[in-house]
């Protein structure tokens, strides 16, 4: 056989997985040899090395490139190889089967559009056969065939093959995975790889090569609603370009985009590209693109652009299936970095519901940690709200990785939104922002005029910690410096705006905080730096601060926590002041934080340099 060398029309990524020693690398080597895809001299070179080392030649050595891999006869890391067959370029990923190298197997499988899963006819279904089958499903590889290898060692018997098919189908059925085919082969001898086996006449299905040809490109994600996670915002020249990869749907010039979670909106003015004539006017799923907008809105990496009628989910919590690869176990209470699409945010495990043993899918409950190579169902809680999707609806925006210190240590798919206590306020903010009537003066105009961005400085803490005093001092200092600042005191709301509330309602935080937050939102829309305290809420300041934050979002909130003794500040506190306060030093600290967050320019009098519009 010789490879057909017509021009490729597409690429297809295939991964080969299965238990250690079940013959993955051998299958790959055989596939290449039998289709004439090996470069001249490759076979001879490997044969010579084998001879020199005094061992029998194996096809596996063709791709196990590391000395150690050849010496131990195992694959350590995923190798990518290429071959052309019938107008398609295959990128074949040979994944290791040894359980030590599960992270490498997962890295390989995560790139694949289809898979071949190998099972040794003599050994039957083993631990990693099951684990890999389950992980393929979890990783979203729905297209796969099961290859029963080493049929020569069981005398090419059909009953052995049928037994394995029955057992493995039952296992896969538990999580609704359905392979396209079971194929009996001998990779070593070349039966049913590229050529039909002469000894297994009882099998009339496709060979491995024919099966590869039968795998299709994944269903067109372009038909789904739009998802464009913002990757970066560039301003190399006069154009301010929002870039990202469209993970679902399509867009065109003139489309109205909504960015979540900031709720910012604008229309696409242009689609930008280098060396493309004429300039494109549309884009679709899979493309890395750049667009400019008709309005100078401040959007940043991590937001997801969509249309207004198909918004992504928003919450600070979700339920997920996670596989863990970290050297340290995944524990409750520890901080991890969550990465969903292009968003990076601190998170922690709120609860571990169960650990799933991939050998028999048995569930173990009441565990406080997930060990390396385990799969678990858990709830994750993020520090700030994130936009995401359920993986059943959107693949790319419905999955995530967890970073422990410097390393990606696990990954998972989002199965369920978990409602948090800010849900109603967030929904209110969304509805209000979408319907917001804008004047002719833009937020950008005000910022340029005032020399600073709008912001909320919020002092939290118990009674008599000096919040009110610091707020007054800060307001005075900002105004003296020529800033536009205003002290929003809760007392002024209590007797006016809140006058209609009953005594009981005034005792509860919810409605008071909602009104306070909406007033702050209006004031920031005028371009002011609002200085305020949680004084009206007494000891319920944690709850109130959360509500205010949700309602003024995405205006920056600089949270300052004051206490007489060391205590745990509310989440997302920026400045912590403990013990007796030196108010001049404290004011300076808050001013520094305002500069760090880009609200104020570095020097008084100077116009701030805005990296982006606001």
């Amino acid at each position, binding site marked *: 056989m010789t490879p057909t060398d017509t021009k490729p029309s597409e690429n297809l990524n295939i991964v080969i997985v299965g238990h250690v020693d079940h013959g993955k690398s051998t299958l790959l080597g055989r596939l290449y040899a039998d289709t004439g895809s090996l470069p001249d001299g490759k076979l001879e070179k490997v044969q010579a090395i084998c001879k020199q080392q005094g061992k029998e030649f194996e096809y596996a050595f063709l791709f196990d490139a590391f000395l150690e891999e050849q010496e131990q006869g195992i694959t350590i890391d995923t190798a990518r190889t290429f071959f052309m067959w019938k107008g398609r370029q295959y990128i074949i990923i040979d994944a290791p089967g040894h359980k030590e190298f599960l992270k490498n197997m997962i890295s390989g499988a995560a790139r694949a559009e289809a898979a071949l899963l190998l099972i040794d006819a003599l050994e039957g279904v083993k631990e990693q056969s099951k684990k890999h089958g389950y992980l393929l499903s979890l990783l979203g590889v729905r297209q796969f065939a099961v290859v029963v290898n080493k049929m020569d060692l069981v005398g090419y018997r059909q009953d052995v093959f049928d037994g394995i098919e029955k057992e493995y189908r039952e296992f896969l059925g538990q999580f609704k995975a359905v392979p396209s085919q079971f194929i009996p082969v001998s990779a070593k001898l070349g039966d049913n790889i590229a050529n039909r086996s002469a000894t297994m006449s009882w099998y009339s299905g496709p060979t491995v090569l024919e099966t590869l040809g039968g795998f299709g490109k994944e269903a067109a994600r372009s038909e789904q609603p739009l998802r464009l996670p913002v990757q*970066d915002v560039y301003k190399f020249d006069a154009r301010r370009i929002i870039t990202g990869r469209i993970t679902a749907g399509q867009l065109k010039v003139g489309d109205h985009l909504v960015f979540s979670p900031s709720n910012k909106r604008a229309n696409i003015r242009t689609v930008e590209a280098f060396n493309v004539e004429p300039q494109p006017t549309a884009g679709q799923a899979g493309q890395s693109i750049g667009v400019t907008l008709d309005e100078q809105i401040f959007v940043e990496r991590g937001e997801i652009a969509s249309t207004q009628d198909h918004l992504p989910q928003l919450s600070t919590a979700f339920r997920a299936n996670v596989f863990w690869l970290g050297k340290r176990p995944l524990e409750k209470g520890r901080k991890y970095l969550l990465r969903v699409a292009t968003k990076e945010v601190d998170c922690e495990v709120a609860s571990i519901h169960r650990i799933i043993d991939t050998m028999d899918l048995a569930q173990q409950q009441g565990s406080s940690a997930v060990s390396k190579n385990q799969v678990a169902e858990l709830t994750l809680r993020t520090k700030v709200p994130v936009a995401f999707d359920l993986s059943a609806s959107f693949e790319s925006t419905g999955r995530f990785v967890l970073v422990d210190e410097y390393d990606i240590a696990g990954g998972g798919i989002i199965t369920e939104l978990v409602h948090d206590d800010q849900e109603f306020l967030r929904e209110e903010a969304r509805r209000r922002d979408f319907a917001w009537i804008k004047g002719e003066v833009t937020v950008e105009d005000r910022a340029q005029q005032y020399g600073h961005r709008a912001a909320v400085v919020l002092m939290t803490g118990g009674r008599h910690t000096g919040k009110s005093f610091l707020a007054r001092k800060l307001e005075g200092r900002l105004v003296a410096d020529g800033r536009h600042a205003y002290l929003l005191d809760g007392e002024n709301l209590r007797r006016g705006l809140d006058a209609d509330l009953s005594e009981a309602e005034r005792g509860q935080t919810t409605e008071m905080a909602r009104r306070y937050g909406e007033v702050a939102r209006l004031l920031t829309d005028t371009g002011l730096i609002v200085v305020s305290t949680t004084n009206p809420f007494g000891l319920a300041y944690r709850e109130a601060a959360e509500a205010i934050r949700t309602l003024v979002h995405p205006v920056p909130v600089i949270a300052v926590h004051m206490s007489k003794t060391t205590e745990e500040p509310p989440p997302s506190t920026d400045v912590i002041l403990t013990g007796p306060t030196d108010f001049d030093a404290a004011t300076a600290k808050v001013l520094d934080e305002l500069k760090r967050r880009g609200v104020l320019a570095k020097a008084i009098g100077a116009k701030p340099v805005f990296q982006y519009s606001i």
Partner: protein
Amino acid sequence: MKHLRQLEDQSVYIFREAYKHFDNLAMLWSMGKDSTVLLWLARKAFFGHVPFPLLHVDTSYKIPAMIEYRDRLAREWGLNLVVGQNKEALAAGMNHEMGRVVCCTALKTNGLKQLLETKGYTGVILGVRADEEGTRAKERYFSPRDKHGDWDFRDQPPELWDQYKTTFPPGTHIRIHPLLDWTEINIWEYIKLENIPFIDLYLDKGDGTRYRSLGCAPCTTPIKSTAKNVDDIIEELRHTTVAERSGRAQDEGRGMELLRKDGYM
């Protein structure tokens, strides 16, 4: 053509991830065909701009036409070119006759390490491809190097979907490989598709030979070929079964595994 756009989209995504996450980013430029496509993809990703320096580790043994081509393109495209050289080793008379691995280690690996150390780059973009040779087939898109610049291929970090390793301890750096999924044919197909200027050493200019892979003059030999333009090259590659790097002496024996473990490109 569709497959080339798929590769382009993936590479552009990788470039933008690199630019977002690494403050001190640089790109290696060897003036070969892969580097040429790499540079073009950078301009694709950044809408005509190349917002980081291009590094060339000059062994002093490069084919002179390559240096001329380098300086010309740097001028015409306004590139920020940084040239590094292991002057100490050259002063001590290092050359390929002292041993190929020895020479490559001194002039390329160590030359590169010196350059990275002096400039403090934490992210380095390279044009290596998985189909070039065995150890590169096992690379990640974002591949960490330790304090000594060494590659621990036994313990590579997981790489899931479009999430790459972008955090790293101080003193270490990350090698970024946007071309990992491209094959030699893809490179030429793309050069044709985008009409990218490339160095003419890759073409037969009448003597029936051309370079298929470019390196140092003493260790790179031309192949027999009558390919006079990009179409000829693509046609030739569709039918050849000779390995791309068969003209590269450093690939003999276990050369590349040893070199790359110690931080070679």
